[in-house]
């Protein structure tokens, strides 16, 4: 047996479809090619588009913060893990942003949304945009984000919009992995050294105030939940609390008792009112695209 047939055995499936080995959406230009993108009956297209932007922006901005960890991770194996997570979330963002353009009738593409919108039109929760103080900060943020998003996607799988359902079905297995990764690290850091425990505690304290926003429904979400295509975020809280409780218990830590971060005149990320970090983040994300308006890449 030649010494390269072992690899052929493992990579055969990959070779048949080279696009398959990349995260969904990197192999072709139109992520929604061949998918029926019509709006379900009784659903307002503008609301559905807004909802897709909410979930898409969460993933896009979270992925951006993960990308900033490239070449800075604490060990090389973590580089591949974090890049994997960033790529998964970017793939979800692409599908969701594409779907928004199909739903609101404007026909805008994923790049129009990612690079063409001003900050006030981004609808991610503030949790996604804050910078991580250190690796513990990343772990805490990823734990909260993944636990919440998994609860959300698990419900979307069974709801009426076929595109959201398909995105959710694929996303569930990805986010399960992300949540598991974050939970394992939270437990390791909590039970590692005195220093790592301290860092993990500080990280939880930084992230806890940003949780309330995750379960606060907007008008669009309430209408869509009533129409059977969205999940009411408030309904996710019990599952979130249960899972976080399990992780805290395994880690021997207590979830910090912190008040939720207030909005501005009652508005926060879902309404396009972000933290000061968001401006810098978008300047970086959009700079090259905006320097070449109308260019194809």
């Amino acid at each position, binding site marked *: 047996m030649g010494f390269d047939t072992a690899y052929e055995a493992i990579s055969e499936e990959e070779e048949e479809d080279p696009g398959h080995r990349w995260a969904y959406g*990197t192999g072709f230009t139109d992520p929604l090619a061949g998918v029926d993108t019509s709006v379900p009956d009784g659903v307002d297209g503008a609301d559905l588009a807004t909802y897709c932007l909410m979930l898409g922006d969460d993933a896009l901005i979270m992925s951006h913060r993960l990308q900033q960890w*490239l070449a800075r991770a604490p060990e090389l194996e973590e580089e*591949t893990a974090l890049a*994997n997570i960033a*790529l998964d979330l970017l793939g979800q963002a692409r599908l969701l942003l594409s779907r928004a353009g199909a739903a609101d009738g404007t026909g805008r593409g994923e790049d129009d949304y990612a690079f063409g919108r001003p900050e006030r039109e981004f609808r991610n929760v503030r949790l996604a945009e804050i910078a991580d103080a250190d690796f513990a900060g990343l772990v805490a943020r990823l734990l909260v984000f993944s636990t919440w998003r998994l609860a959300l996607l698990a419900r979307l799988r069974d709801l009426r919009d076929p595109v959201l359902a398909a995105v959710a079905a694929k996303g569930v297995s990805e986010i399960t992995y992300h949540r598991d990764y974050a939970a394992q690290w939270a437990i390791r850091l909590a039970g*590692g050294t005195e220093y790592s425990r301290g860092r993990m505690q500080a990280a939880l304290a930084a992230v806890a105030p940003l949780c309330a926003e995750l379960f606060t429904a907007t008008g669009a979400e309430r209408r869509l939940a009533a129409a059977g295509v969205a999940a009411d975020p408030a309904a996710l809280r019990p599952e979130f609390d249960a899972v976080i409780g399990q992780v805290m218990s395994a880690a021997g830590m207590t979830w910090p008792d912190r008040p939720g971060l207030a909005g501005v005149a009652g508005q926060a990320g879902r309404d396009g009112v972000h933290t000061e970090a968001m401006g810098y983040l978008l300047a970086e994300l959009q700079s090259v*695209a905006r320097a070449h308006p109308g*260019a194809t*890449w």
Partner: protein
Amino acid sequence: MTAATREAEPLAQDFEDLVAHDRRIEPRDWMPEAYRKTMIRQIAQHAHSEIIGMQPEGNWVTRAPSLRRKAILLAKIQDEAGHGLYLYSAAETLGADRADLTSRLISGAQKYSSIFNYPTLTFADVGVIGWLVDGAAICNQVPLCRSSYGPYARAMIRICKEESFHQRQGYELLMTMMRGTDAQQEMVQDATSRWWWPSLMMFGPPDADSPNTAQSMRWRIKRHTNDELRQRFVDMSVPQAEALGVTLPDPLLRWDDDRGHYDFGQPDWDEFKQVISGHGPCNAERIANRRAAHENGGWVREAAAAYAARQAAAAGQTVAGQAAAGGQAAAGGQAAAGGQEATAGTGGTA
């Protein structure tokens, strides 16, 4: 010394025979010390190159001007981390320790490919790196798939498969840009002019200035000379440049019918010496970033190791407890006491 040499002679002959017949040397084979050390150094420096190479490309992920390009670049960088890991893994089969190799990279005792000491200044650089730098790497690496050392050859096969994707994607980005706006086309031409000569330098100094090539060729560590590979790369790249519509910055470049190859000018070997001796545009920054990541990550690695040790100790105690409960208390107790005695006995030594 003499006895060891006499024992080594048939082993040395076996080694030379394996190599001469193009068979693979595997981790447990006897091998000359110089072969082992050369192999460790070559594999480690290759691994370091993959890891350092993440930086110039990582420079543009957050600013990629389309989500598709962002995803492609992110996947590529992830691959590079993976390649570095496969290679460190191969080096470790020879007895190297990865933390030690990392410290040698950071101290400058071990090198990485000099190409990564150049800055990536525009998004077009991402495409040109895929086209020229990965192209040069492939020229170097395909022969290494037949390197005499088994784990290295196998790692190279896996790497070469993935690298060919990268080159194609880089080239495709450039093709798209060359069909785009004037600004995009100028960006591609500018990037090409900056990366062409450093890409030629990736093959190392001219053969006349490479005294160690002969031994490495005999041991099938190296299968082609620097100049042979450089010529192959030029012959491959010139038609690709023509297809793109960019001009390569070499006035001496022309097809030679007699030789059946392209004639080309020599890179600035003085700049090459500057760059490999630490004075290139980005050397300090690349190493500083690698050092920072490694040092800032120390508490994380330590925490994981401490947690694992605690879990293992708890599991060990559970097993001993179960054994005791099962009526094997005597054996468990003796083992524990024996362990403690052994520790006490050696406690005095440094």
